[in-house]
């Protein structure tokens, strides 16, 4: 087993990985940029190494700096987390060439699946259903022709892409040139690669993905699905498992297809096969493979009982994954809400600032994977994910109820968050009925029934009172201290003795 692991990431996922390391008795090394000097992940590690300026290119994407940090700290393995360099084949290759373990798949698997065009071709060959589309287009005329052939609406995607970056839905031919141009720019900037592919856009689809997991000895299984249809800007905000759409038969079929897809690229470690499912036809199509740990892995952990990060580390160290497909099952229901610093009433634009208050919910069946605490600064340099709130319940209804009350107890001040918004989503009948598709947020927002402003008005009056009183208690320090020193405001002694007077 490894003695020391460097975590080439930040925020909640760095902390999540450090927890697994500690449980396995492995020392941890954090890396941090100028902007993260005081961040939580730095405090969680056994050692922390500064690797550069706030801009990701200077720090978390800087392979040389990361390798120097790994050597200086004598780490024997690197966990890339998600995002940043996690799906960068040449980074995985560099790590392996330095005789360190890369906690993830082989560089060859990443390369094969990392390119959306190449992977689609490979999947077609392996007999996994894919969305009709074209790869390897270059000129504007090529794109126009291909788009006409498929029929609008179409989806433009960065070949090297992920996370919704460089992705555009094009509804009509007139918009194609501008969207191609814009997607290209975003792709170059995010991935350093301007190749695009286009495919048929299926507007009312469910996004359902399968977790796969394999060891380095050829054993690979799937760990069931995650339903991730609640999305904005092509990025997931709420994920759950099991999917309300799948039947046991379809689940088995898609699981088998996921295993086939992963095996086609000799995959090992944790990976995810993303499918889109057309609810009208119940046809499923391979979308892409994420060759890393997913943001939403906790819902799989809660329903399968496995610790995916511990297993990632163990199989990277050469251990066998000890469960057969038949031994694995789903139990109960889990939901994850991604708490983002963003403004749902303003196009989900990220919100930056200092966290004035940050209080996480607690209780049975509630897990919070968080990278922030009160006083931390949310900057525009990184993804605005504050925390992942994950709940477990014996069935979908209890999980939804639990999530609703947990969201109510999540207090974040200083940046605008999507907490209110997610409450309205969870309370919506479409969500209750499992009718949410990937465009649901967009279309339902347009219809006006999703904005928190439409909720009860009484809170408005109470908020004014609270704000005004808070001002008084701040100005009038004496009264606030007096109140704070009362250990039990409900003590019967007070009533009897007239203690307060």
């Amino acid at each position, binding site marked *: 087993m490894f003695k020391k692991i460097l975590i080439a990431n930040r925020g909640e996922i760095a902390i999540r990985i450090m927890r697994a390391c500690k449980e396995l008795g492995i020392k941890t090394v954090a890396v941090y940029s100028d902007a993260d000097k005081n961040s939580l992940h730095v405090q969680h590690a056994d050692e922390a190494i500064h690797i550069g300026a706030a801009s*990701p290119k200077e720090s978390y994407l800087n392979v040389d700096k990361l390798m120097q940090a790994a050597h200086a700290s004598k780490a024997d393995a690197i966990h890339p987390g998600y995002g940043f360099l996690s799906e960068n084949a040449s980074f995985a290759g560099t790590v392996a060439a330095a005789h360190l373990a890369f906690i993830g798949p082989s560089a060859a698997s990443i390369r094969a699946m990392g390119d959306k065009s190449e992977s689609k071709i490979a999947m077609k060959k392996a007999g996994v259903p894919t969305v009709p589309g074209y790869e390897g287009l270059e000129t504007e005329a090529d794109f126009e022709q291909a788009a006409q052939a498929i029929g609008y609406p179409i989806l433009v995607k960065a070949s090297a892409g992920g996370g919704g*970056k460089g992705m555009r839905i094009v509804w009509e031919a007139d918009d194609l040139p*501008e969207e191609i141009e*814009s997607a290209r*720019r*975003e792709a170059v*900037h*995010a991935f350093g690669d301007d190749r695009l592919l286009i495919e048929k856009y299926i507007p009312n689809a469910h996004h359902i993905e399968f977790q796969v997991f394999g060891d380095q000895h050829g054993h690979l299984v799937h760990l069931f699905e995650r339903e991730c249809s609640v999305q904005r*800007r092509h990025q997931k905000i709420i994920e759950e498992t099991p999917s309300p759409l799948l039947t046991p038969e379809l689940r088995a079929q898609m699981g088998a297809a996921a295993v086939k897809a992963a095996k086609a690229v000799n995959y090992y470690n944790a990976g995810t096969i993303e499918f889109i499912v057309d609810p009208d036809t119940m046809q499923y199509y391979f979308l892409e493979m994420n060759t890393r740990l997913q943001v939403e892995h906790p819902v799989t952990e809660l329903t399968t009982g496995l610790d995916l990060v511990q297993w990632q580390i163990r199989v990277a160290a050469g251990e066998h994954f000890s469960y057969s497909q038949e031994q694995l099952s789903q139990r109960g229901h889990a939901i994850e809400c991604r708490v983002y610093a963003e403004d749902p009433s*303003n*196009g989900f*634009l*990220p*919100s*930056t600032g*200092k966290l*004035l*208050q940050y*209080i996480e919910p607690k209780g049975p069946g509630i897990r919070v994977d968080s990278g922030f605490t009160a006083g931390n600064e949310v900057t*525009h*340099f990184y*993804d*605005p994910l504050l925390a992942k709130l994950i709940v477990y319940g014996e069935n979908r209804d209890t999980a939804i109820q639990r999530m609703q009350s947990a*969201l*109510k*107890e*999540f*207090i*974040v*001040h*200083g940046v*605008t*968050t999507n*907490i*209110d918004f997610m*409450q309205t989503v969870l309370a919506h009948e479409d969500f209750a009925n499992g009718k949410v598709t990937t465009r649901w947020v967009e279309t339902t927002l347009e219809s006006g029934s999703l904005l*928190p402003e439409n*909720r009860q008005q009484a*809170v*408005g*009056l*109470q*908020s*004014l*009172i*609270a*704000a*005004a*009183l*808070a*001002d*008084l*208690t*701040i100005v009038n320090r004496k*009264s*606030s201290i007096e*109140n*704070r020193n009362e250990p039990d*405001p409900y003590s019967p002694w007070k009533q009897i003795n007239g203690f*307060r007077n």
Partner: protein
Amino acid sequence: MKITFDQTVIDLTPQGKSYRATIGDKTVDIEIVRAEAGKLELLIDNQRVTTYVSSDGAKRWVTINGQTVVLTKASGAKRRGSGHDHGSGLVAPMPGLVRSVNIEEGEAVMKGHTLLVLEAMKMEIRIQAPRDGLVKKLFVKQGQTVEREQVLIEIE
């Protein structure tokens, strides 16, 4: 004592250990059950309400029953009209980098036309013309870093 938040005036009158609040034509009685840093437990007309309140300059963040609102306190001196009034100016919705500028001063633009593209958190944010008009003034150039609410373009 009168305090104004976003045009709404609330009048608080201390009455022994409790307060009477008047907002418009509504009057309620309030008792502070417990106050600690950032948290107030109140009895509003005998109904228990737990509130979380944070102050940031003139802004007040308040969460009650899972709903968060941001109120802006009006200061004694009238500052309205200068600070946040951008008139016909388009402002940066968040800090970022000007990735491209698609227009020049004096150019006629149509509603919805992408005037410039900002980049922040690795995303492109298009600044579009809110209506038909002329670009009166362009305040930024490509490659420039801008702050939140910085005026980018003036349209007339």
